[in-house]
């Protein structure tokens, strides 16, 4: 029996692209948490610079207060917007919609 290697390879490729990749939503929440850690680090690094370099004036105090208020507002809005999300749900990638070989085969 003759085996067509190209036919076999293309079949394997189709199977690969048809397989679903499922990413749980909480993974994105973890990425967000990691970003928040970086954000907090740099925010405090900036704040420390103000103290260290004698930059604590009314202007810098006001700017810091406004930006802290904005940060709190963004975090509250984010929490509010995501309050009903089920984080155990999965985001499905792949499948027929992502099968780039569909039109050819």
């Amino acid at each position, binding site marked *: 029996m003759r085996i067509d290697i190209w036919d076999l390879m293309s079949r394997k490729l189709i199977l690969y692209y048809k397989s679903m990749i499922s990413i749980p*939503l909480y993974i*994105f*929440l973890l*990425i*967000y948490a990691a*970003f*928040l850690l970086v*954000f907090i680090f*740099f*925010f405090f*690094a*900036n704040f420390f*610079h*103000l*103290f*260290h*370099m*004698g*930059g*604590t*004036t*009314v*202007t*810098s105090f006001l*700017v*810091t207060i406004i*930006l802290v208020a*904005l*940060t709190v507002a*963004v*975090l509250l*809005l*984010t929490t509010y*917007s*995501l309050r009903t*999300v*089920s*984080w155990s*749900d*999965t*985001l*499905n990638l792949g499948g027929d919609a992502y099968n780039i070989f569909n039109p050819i085969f």
Partner: protein
Amino acid sequence: MLTTYLIPFSNRMTIDALIHRKDYEKIQYFLHRHYITFVPILILLVLLLIVPIATIFLGGEYTSSWFASSTIYPLIVLFVSIYYLSLILFFYSYFITFYLDVWIITNDRLVDIRQESLFSRTIAEVDLYQIEDVSSEVKGLFPSLFNYGNVYLQTAGPVPKFVLYNVPDPHGLRQAILSLASEDKKYHN
């Protein structure tokens, strides 16, 4: 009248320690770049703040379908949140860099503290008696309107050239530096 900025008492000790102020030294000028030079970044910030809101409104049905999806919606919210927090952080870092970029002129020397980025700072100083030549320039529409510009100092010290960028009232400052330098030369002849 030369524009200077008041230094709160709590900061004086930090600044004294930073420049190792001598007993006989008095701080004459504490200069930041002119506040008007911060306005372009403010405008950019406002524009960038509008971008996600504008995208949602202009996207119409295309973007509303994203919000209908139970899996895409949280991703959009997280992405927009990261976007806004990044903007806040960028703006704060820029403000710190801008605000900590200072020139301190005492009756003995000029200290140039340049905050190039969050973790990069250069401090240079020159004794006033070593200043050979001072020139000032106000170039352009906005600098002329708001009276700010550059002051160039030619010195005989190890740092041959000092530039005070976008300082308020550069012509007044030039005269003040020349007068302070000639006063200081009396003690070094």
